[in-house]
């Protein structure tokens, strides 16, 4: 455990750096009347490339792959005269072709991103024309620093704005920041007093034209802002409460006027997201890269062997007079010979692998896009793979880091109280909207039974109680804080009585109930509360107390006094003293009842989480929201379960946290149970502990911290992380994770634009992982491997690509051994370079696209299958395939060699078809073997598979027939191959060989497969067999195994029935009882003020 603790939230941490920013850099000076062209414009781009950067960036990315560098090198070397045994362009042309395919794919994908960006950039907004004093529609991208804009209700802010005025009293406005910090409750921002009176465009121009703003340089701190408004001679300080940020949305406010401060990539939101989308490469690709190096090493070894052998042969065989004069100084140079062999064997590294991979991924991505099971009808949105490079990562995810709001839960919108509105019919309707939904529901419920909340003024509220209008005077509002966990209002009833109404967390209210009330309702209500709590609802208790007039007066005097005091008596701080004062009056309560609200989960979230947990995936919830809410959601989505040990770390200070972490670690060590960790505010050193836990919830984390957590998980566990979220606050996390998934379907969602995959709702996640992930990374049985049966489509594809090249090119090594190590290829050069492009291009494609071991339904049914993917691409497997290739080449070569040994292959007596008859026979057998090997490894033969495998073989025959006739058609083209087809096809030896040589090469593979499938069945095999079997007896076996699974994966949970459980239950119960306050704590405007600023009897300005 590290000793250093970094506990600050981003906002607080910024204070020091922000000051530094201020000192080191000149402040940004904005003249309200001017436009500032020299600042960055408001267009944003999330695309990878533009027209200029495409070529260098693309090439850089392509030549990140060692194989491409290698082939470039080979292509260059082939230009040296005499060195290449296979001509000048046999590598360059395929390489160019492959790069072109990749380039087209990249362009295609990037155009989609450009389109999305254009959509955002061309959103319309009203901008003030300072010469005509008219509002004009402009695109977002045209906005400049210093522009004045008008935003209407439910619009997103196009950039960071300084709030000038609004339709609400005191220039207040409500904003929804769910995209920024994930909190669902509305926040209040207000304008400076000096600007609130400018309610029309003319006023703005006339009164503010000489003013200027001095503020910080653009920075990434969301909660930090310093600035001054200079209006004439007076200077007014500005704070974060006067600024609204890009990514937030205006709510419950008709309009606001704002002055643009930071635009485009300088806005705080964009500064928080990494500037450019990083180019992600998958793990499999990285491993492939490594294995390519390994293959390169093998290649070098073979080349050195060959070159050395060549050297020795030349030394020992000087007497071959017919070869005199065929050597010169250069060609007898060792390194020159080495280079010749490198070129000869270069395709040991499969040139087509990258392009096959890309095409396969691209089509896989289109499968994801088209999958009807992932199409969200509600939102009319299909799942979308925005990059296709990461498909196989989906099959290996170990950690899911999820956002809460909008991802696990629905994006609940919580508006404030609104004023009366007249519908066109003239019938008054009232829209009630509470800070929390239960309040609104209560008010609406009361209205239904005849008690209507009709109007409010700063001092009073009016209630129409069964026809009579009653006026309640608001005397005091005792604010909510998270310490108090309650809030109360003191009112004077129409009868003149003084009453205190209180709502708060059950623990708080119960402590303050009067004896009689406790006896009367306590038990019943408590029963309800615990029922609510187990369902994962957030509860509130409401209570009332009558206060005698004189007692109230006396208290009120002290209370007002306390608010003005510098410090409290007896060394108490002022806040503590006020709290004490509040507590005094909130006593002897009479319980009215309790309410419960549900943070509505997205469809099927608990099931999905359950499935994912069973699949061995750890789920972490990272949220900017409060601890209570987070825990609550944890319960309702079954992430936190009753049997689990909950460790909560929520201390304020560094020392306390360190202590509780140590304590918690001991706890974790000593427990057998599954552990859920709940962290309030982030410590970088909690990782070690967190990784031991089944589930982790982090509360109040900033966007940047989310990304930090992702990075930390990635670094410490070296496993694949997946981040899922919907808001702009998740962008950094989504970009940092190996796989980023965005929730789509709502407008203006930044997360989707930075994600790798976009899905409509959370419940589709499990299909995306289990089906597409698995089908990308498909389980397989592999011959020659002991024990390990799982292999993915792509891994199989990659390994198969390695295999097929090894199988062909090691033939050249054997041939070199019988042809004096001269570097002569046994095959015709273009046949050789088309091997990867035509004759064996299709089998890897069908492996990558159509192979599957179990159906989608089975994959969904047995999530445990997912676990077997983790050790797919191991060294053993790699070598098994390589050796398989070597073995096949060995058999193919020598069997063919001995078959044609006497050179007389025809009845007509002609002997010695030359090296090309042998070479083409061998090539035929090799193509057949390699295609059949693919067939052997494929578990599901669709018609495409049949077409690919038999088609490839047929293709070779067709090619052979066509190419052998070239010489007659085009002079001197294909002279070597002239008539080869007739020679081969007329030979009985060839047809006898075709029946046995490929088969004997594959015999070991078949035998191994048989033995292991019969005697060493794996989980996958069992399930596969079950799927195959339709008989009722087989089905009962299926059920049995299902039960077996359940027992296995629940065994840990059973262990949790230990003695300590009862003791802990109380603690847990307390944690489960979340309470439902949605008020902003220490907000820009305190609730007590807020309640008093409204006067619904007056109409609002229209802001023209």
């Amino acid at each position, binding site marked *: 455990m590290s000793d250093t603790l970094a506990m600050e939230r981003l906002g607080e941490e910024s204070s020091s750096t922000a000051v530094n920013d201020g000192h080191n850099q000149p402040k940004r000076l904005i003249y309200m009347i001017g436009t500032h062209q020299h600042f960055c414009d408001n267009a944003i781009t999330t695309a990878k490339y533009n027209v200029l950067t495409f070529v260098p960036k693309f090439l850089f990315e392509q030549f990140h792959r060692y194989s491409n560098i290698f082939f470039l090198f080979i292509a260059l070397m082939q230009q040296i005269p005499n060195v290449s045994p296979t001509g000048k362009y046999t590598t360059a042309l395929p390489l160019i072709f492959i790069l072109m395919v990749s380039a087209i794919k990249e362009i295609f994908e990037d155009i989609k991103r450009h389109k999305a960006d254009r959509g955002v950039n061309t959103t319309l907004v009203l901008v003030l024309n300072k010469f005509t004093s008219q509002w004009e529609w402009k695109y977002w991208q045209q906005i400049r620093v210093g522009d004045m804009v008008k935003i209407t209700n439910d619009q997103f802010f196009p950039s960071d704005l300084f709030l000038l005025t609004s339709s609400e009293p005191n220039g207040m406005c409500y904003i929804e920041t769910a995209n920024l910090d994930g909190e669902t409750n509305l926040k209040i921002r207000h304008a400076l007093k000096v600007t609130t009176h400018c309610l029309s465009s003319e006023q703005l121009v006339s009164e503010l034209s000489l003013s200027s703003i001095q503020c910080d340089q653009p920075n990434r701190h969301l909660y930090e802002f310093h600035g001054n408004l200079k209006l004439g001679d007076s200077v007014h300080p500005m704070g974060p409460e006067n600024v609204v940020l890009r990514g937030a949305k205006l709510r419950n406010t008709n309009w606001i006027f704002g002055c643009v401060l930071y635009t485009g990539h300088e806005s705080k939101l964009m500064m928080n997201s990494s500037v450019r989308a990083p180019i992600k490469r998958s793990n499999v690709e990285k491993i492939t890269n490594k294995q390519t190096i390994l293959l390169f090493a093998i290649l070098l070894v073979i080349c050195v062997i060959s070159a050395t052998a060549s050297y020795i042969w030349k030394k020992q065989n000087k*007497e071959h007079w017919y070869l005199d004069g065929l050597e010169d100084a250069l060609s007898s140079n060792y390194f020159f010979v080495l280079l010749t062999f490198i070129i000869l064997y270069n395709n040991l590294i499969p040139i087509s692998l990258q392009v096959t991979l890309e095409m396969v991924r691209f089509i896989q991505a289109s499968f994801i896009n088209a999958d009807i099971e992932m199409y969200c009808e509600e939102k009319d949105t299909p799942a979308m793979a925005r990059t296709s490079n990461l498909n196989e990562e989906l099959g290996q995810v170990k950690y899911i880091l999820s956002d809460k709001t909008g991802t696990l839960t629905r994006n609940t919108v919580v508006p404030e109280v609104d004023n009366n509105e007249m519908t066109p019919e003239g019938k008054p309707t009232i829209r009630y909207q509470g800070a929390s939904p239960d309040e609104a529901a209560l008010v609406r419920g009361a209205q239904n039974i005849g008690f209507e909340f009709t109007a409010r003024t700063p001092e009073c509220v009016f209630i129409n109680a069964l026809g009579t209008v009653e006026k309640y005077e608001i005397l005091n509002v005792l604010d909510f804080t998270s310490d108090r966990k309650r809030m109360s209002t003191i009112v004077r009833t129409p009868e003149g009585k003084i009453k205190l109404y209180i709502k708060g967390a059950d623990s708080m209210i119960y402590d303050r109930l009067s004896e009689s009330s406790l006896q009367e309702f306590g038990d019943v209500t408590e029963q309800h509360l615990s029922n609510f709590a187990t369902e994962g609802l957030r509860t509130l208790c409401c209570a009332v107390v009558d206060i005698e007039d004189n007692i109230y007066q006396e208290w009120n005097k002290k209370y007002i006094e306390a608010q003005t005091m510098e410090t409290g008596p007896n060394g108490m701080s002022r806040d503590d003293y006020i709290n004490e004062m509040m507590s005094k009056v909130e006593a002897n309560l009479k319980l009215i009842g309790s309410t419960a609200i549900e943070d509505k989960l997205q469809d099927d979230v608990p099931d999905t989480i359950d499935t994912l947990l069973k699949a061995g995936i750890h789920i972490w919830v990272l949220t900017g929201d409060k601890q209570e809410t987070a825990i609550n959601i944890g319960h309702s989505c079954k992430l936190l379960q009753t049997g689990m040990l909950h460790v909560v770390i929520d201390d304020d200070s560094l020392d306390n946290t360190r202590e509780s972490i140590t304590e918690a670690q001991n706890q974790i060590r000593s427990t057998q149970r599954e552990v859920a960790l709940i962290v309030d505010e982030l410590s970088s050193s909690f990782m070690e502990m967190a990784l031991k836990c089944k589930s982790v919830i982090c509360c109040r984390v900033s966007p940047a911290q989310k990304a930090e957590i992702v990075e930390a998980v990635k670094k410490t566990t070296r496993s694949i992380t997946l981040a899922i979220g919907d808001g702009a606050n998740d962008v950094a996390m989504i970009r940092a994770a190996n796989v980023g998934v965005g929730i789509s379907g709502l407008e203006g969602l930044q997360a989707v634009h930075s994600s790798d995959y976009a899905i409509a709702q959370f419940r589709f996640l499990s299909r995306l992982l289990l089906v597409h992930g698995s089908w990308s990374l498909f389980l397989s049985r592999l011959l020659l491997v002991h024990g390990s049966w799982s292999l993915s489509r792509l891994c199989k594809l990659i390994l198969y690509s390695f295999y097929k090249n090894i199988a062909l090119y090691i033939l050249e090594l054997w041939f070199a051994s019988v042809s004096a190590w001269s570097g002569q290829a046994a095959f015709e050069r273009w046949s050789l370079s088309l091997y990867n492009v035509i004759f064996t291009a299709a089998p890897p494609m069908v492996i990558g696209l159509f192979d599957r071991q179990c159906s989608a339904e089975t994959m969904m049914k047995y999530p445990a299958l997912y676990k077997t993917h983790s050790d797919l691409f191991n060294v053993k497997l790699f070598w098994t395939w390589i050796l398989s290739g070597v073995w096949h080449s060995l058999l193919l070569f020598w069997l063919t060699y001995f078959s044609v040994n006497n050179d007389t292959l025809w009845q007509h007596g002609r002997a010695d078809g030359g090296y090309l008859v042998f070479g083409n026979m061998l090539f035929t057998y090799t193509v057949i073997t390699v295609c059949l090997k693919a067939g052997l490894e494929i578990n599901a*033969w669709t018609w495409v598979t049949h077409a690919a495998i038999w088609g490839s073989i047929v293709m070779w025959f067709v090619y052979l027939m066509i190419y052998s006739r070239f010489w007659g058609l085009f002079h001197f083209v294909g002279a070597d191959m002239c008539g080869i087809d007739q020679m081969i096809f007329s030979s009985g030896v060839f047809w006898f060989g075709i029946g046995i040589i490929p088969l004997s090469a594959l015999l070991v593979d078949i035998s191994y497969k048989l033995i292991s*499938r019969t005697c060493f069945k794996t989980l996958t095999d069992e399930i596969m067999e079950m799927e195959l079997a339709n008989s009722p007896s087989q089905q009962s076996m299926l059920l049995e195994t299902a039960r077996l699974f359940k027992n296995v994966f629940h065994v840990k949970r059973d262990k949790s029935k230990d003695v300590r459980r009862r003791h802990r239950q109380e603690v847990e119960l307390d944690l489960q009882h979340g309470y439902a306050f949605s008020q902003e704590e220490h907000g820009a405007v305190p609730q007590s003020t807020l309640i008093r600023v409204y006067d619904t009897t007056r109409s609002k300005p229209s802001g023209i």
Partner: protein
Amino acid sequence: MPPNGYKIAECLETTALTARAKGLDLKSMSAANYNRYAMCVKKEMNDFQQQQLSAWLPHLNAGTVFPTFFLMASCMITLGVCQLYISAQVQELQIKYTHCYPITGGKSCAQTLEDNPDSEGCKCVLPFMLDVPFEANVYIYYALNNYYQSLQNYIYSQNEAQLDGSFTPTYPCNSETQSLYNAFASKIIDGKEVPIVPCGAIGNSLFNDTIRLVRSGQGVPLIYTGISWPTDQVKFNNPKGIPLNTAYENYTNPVYWRKNIWDLDPNNSDNNGMKNEALIVWYRTAAFPEFRKFYAKVDHKIGTTYEKSLPKGSYFLEIDYNYPVRMFGGTKSVVISNTSWIGGKNSFLGFAYISTGKVGAHHKYTIFHDKYIHHKENINEIF
């Protein structure tokens, strides 16, 4: 938009309308809503995109595969026996003559040739017996061992155009690469560079031993044409319309040649120059250092002794020994053989069939033997 989104929306709309027309409650259909939707979409989207293609799932395990395996094994053994039988019908006789001595006695021909490369007329006579008649058609081959025709530089050391009867590319021999493959492109005669025809190492090393079969003092009639591939013959052409010796008067022979290109076959004027079939055969470079090349066919002309076969009896092999191989450890031999429909004598594939078949059949025992030992333990491990 989903793929074909408009059509889907349309389809949904129609379904909803139909439902309403029939008085069905859409709400009550909502449970089946998903299916209804999927139905609509599936009309537009195919199984290919949905990865729902019906597939054959070959699950290779002992139970499913044994019958096939057994059948295949027996087929293979049958085929193997057939192949062996066919191969056994082929008659073949190989006579090595690398170290043969001339009738005149003295040094071996190989030695004579090594001592004086220009020496001519070393003649070997090797007696041999045929115990049974060799059925027609009988072919004569020469076989070389430890002779590398498959060297890269050797193979490329030729000029296609020149072989096709063109004069123009005289030097360098192979245009593909400038410096290599150009051995034997020209000779210096009287201080003048004279181009060689046919240029290059292949042409230079043309096999030039003469082989004759003698039975009862009479030469066995041999045919020297029809020994090369027709597809190769089209690639070899003499300059048109000019007698060969005139055509190539500005050229010279390859260094090791003892005959002029225009009298390679003194008995058949058509079998000369580039059209000489022995030359064409030689240019089809062998893959391995041990190879046979067609030398001649026995003439089974009707009405002769040789009509049906090469009769049994004693024969002499007369060799004009010109081709040196001993110095690099090579060997030369003459092969007299007839063929079956699968070519010459080679029983390798037959044995391959039989042994593969045996291995296949053997599996049945092995797998069942192991099955009950490992199966149960392993299942326990998995869970």
